[in-house]
């Protein structure tokens, strides 16, 4: 936002605008340095602890940014505002919990652990940078920082057959998508003469070639649609989620998606805010396709990771419904949904990682039979996450869907909300089937030694997530306020009618 310079804005260094990213990068470098001085074949836990402390510092830095006046830095390439802080906090918390889950994941594995933590931190730097970029060059670079890190992380279990295969599929389709995204940026640059989102917004408002803009937006949407696994660009998702290590899947199914959705919000509402007729039909179709294909695909899956992969496609579809609801309610609903989805999905994959172990030999539906008897606490936590994914009241998933569908109805997209609700009904079936498998099916002796036993770090991570699911489901006010403050930073056309209704409902 090009605000006039006030004395309070000159007083601080522009580096404060990217303080969380700086801290994450330094921690990543520090982790690699510490790894170099650790003795071979000793526990790699100190690396994880360094990474966790660095992430906590980055989260604190993001909160600190709330007290800065919103504004740009570094020649107008990055902008810290309530919107970027919201997504910084979501990504920071996802990374924190993933690190806690990973702390004991590498028991007995001491090689290449430093790279794992460093890649998570560097990837998170890219994701955080995506959410505060207002210049497409910066968006592109940070998108690649985050993507390249996750390509490597997906193939992290080098010795398994599936993990490198997941990695190469993710890499090829991801860079394929990047090419579309880059071409879209090039066309956008040609149409408006700039790659700065605010300049683009001016160009769009001044009537740049509509044909060029439509193609440009379409190609950027294809690029980002691949990254967030929206149908019809979702084909990679099931294979990658099945093959990649479960803690990494928890991270990459939530954090990069939150970042990519933030970018999509900035492009759609910030830059193309006066050309909604260009992108509304595209977003509408992709929302319906994602919800339907995701949920129908999940129905037939026998592997729990694959099932959750299809469910994540469906959830990306629900999120896209919020896009059609126009600013600022749609933006707030979409932001809130990323936080809610993150809490429940990271938790679900954390439990899968715990129950199936490092080798992930037990991820089929039948392996979860009678888990409630053998691991009652883990099963209870898993049940909470699944109930939230269904969207039952008093959980994060319920309010996420509630805001999304209310926003859609208020902006005249009732049909989309109806389709979404029908889809939620279909979705309940496969989540409940897994729950029934866990609780109703009699205990079977495990096919191989079941060595899962919980460690303090893992218990702490799950406790944080279960609390988050309930906190977002019972007291969503605070988070929603922040999401709405973020939505208010957009200069897009305000849809006054739909602005406050759901929040007013909530306050009573």
């Amino acid at each position, binding site marked *: 936002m090009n605000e006039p310079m006030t004395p309070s804005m000159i007083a601080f260094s522009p580096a404060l605008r990217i303080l969380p990213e700086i801290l994450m990068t330094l921690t990543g470098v520090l982790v690699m340095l510490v790894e170099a001085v650790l003795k071979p074949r000793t526990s790699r836990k100190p690396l994880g602890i360094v990474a966790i402390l660095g992430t906590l510092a980055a989260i604190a830095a993001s909160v600190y940014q709330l007290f800065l006046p919103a504004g740009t830095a570094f020649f107008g390439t990055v902008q810290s505002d309530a919107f970027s802080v919201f997504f910084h906090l979501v990504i920071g918390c996802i990374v924190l919990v993933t690190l806690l889950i990973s702390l004991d994941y590498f028991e007995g594995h001491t090689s290449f652990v430093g790279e794992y933590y460093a890649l998570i931190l560097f990837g998170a730097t890219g994701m955080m940078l995506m959410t505060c970029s207002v210049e497409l060059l910066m968006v592109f670079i940070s998108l690649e920082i985050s993507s390249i890190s996750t390509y490597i992380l997906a193939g992290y279990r080098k010795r398994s057959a599936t993990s490198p295969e997941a990695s190469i599929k993710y890499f090829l389709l991801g860079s394929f998508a990047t090419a579309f995204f880059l071409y879209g940026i090039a066309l956008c640059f040609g149409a408006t003469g700039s*790659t700065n989102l605010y300049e683009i917004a001016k160009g769009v408002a001044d009537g740049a070639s509509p044909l060029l803009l439509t193609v440009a937006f379409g190609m950027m949407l294809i690029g980002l649609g691949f990254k967030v696994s929206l149908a019809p660009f979702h084909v990679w998702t099931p294979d990658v989620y099945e093959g990649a290590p479960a803690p990494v899947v928890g991270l990459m199914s939530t954090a990069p998606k939150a970042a990519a959705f933030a970018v999509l919000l900035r492009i759609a509402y910030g830059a193309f805010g006066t050309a909604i007729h260009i992108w509304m039909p595209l977003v509408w179709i992709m929302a319906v396709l994602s919800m339907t294909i995701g949920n129908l695909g999940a129905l037939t899956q026998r592997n729990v990771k694959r099932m959750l992969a299809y469910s994540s496609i469906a959830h990306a579809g629900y999120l896209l419904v919020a896009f059609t609801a126009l600013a600022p309610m749609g933006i707030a609903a979409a932001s809130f949904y990323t936080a809610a989805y993150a809490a429940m999905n990271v938790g679900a994959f954390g439990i899968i990682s715990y129950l199936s172990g490092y080798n992930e030999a037990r991820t089929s539906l039948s392996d979860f039979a009678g888990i409630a008897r053998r691991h009652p606490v883990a099963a209870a936590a898993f049940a909470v996450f699944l109930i939230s994914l269904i969207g039952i009241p008093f959980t994060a998933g319920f309010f996420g869907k509630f805001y999304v569908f209310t926003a859609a109805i208020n902006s005249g997209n009732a049909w989309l909300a109806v389709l979404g609700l029908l889809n939620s009904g279909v979705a309940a079936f496969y989540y409940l089937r897994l729950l029934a498998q866990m609780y109703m099916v009699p205990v079977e002796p495990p096919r191989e030694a079941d060595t899962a036993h919980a460690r303090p770090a893992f218990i702490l991570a799950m406790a944080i997530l279960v609390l988050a699911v309930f906190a977002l489901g019972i007291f969503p006010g605070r988070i929603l306020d922040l999401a709405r403050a973020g939505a208010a930073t957009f200069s897009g056309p305000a849809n006054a009618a739909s602005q406050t209704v759901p929040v007013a409902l909530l306050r009573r």
Partner: protein
Amino acid sequence: MSSLTGYLLVSALIFSIGLAGALTRRSAILVLIGIELMLNAANLNFIAFWRYGPNAQALTGVMFAIFSIGIAAAEAAVGLGIVLAVYRHSKTTELDRMNSMKG
């Protein structure tokens, strides 16, 4: 036909060739080459739009092209590393033989 249109046509052609290559080739390395073609088509667009655009003093287009060349190199390095990791396991770089996961 102005020179800008010419560049844009060439760029669109390169992009389509890359796209066709990425979609039809079975070897992971050839798919990667197709993707590189697509990225370079976008770079050509940047340069053309910058050179024939109204604001050629601002170096936006060139800067974008330079950064994206650097990033494409980093991506290719990681990609070839992943291809090697797969090759060690399955002794192949053919994509249609990488089908251990189904559903």
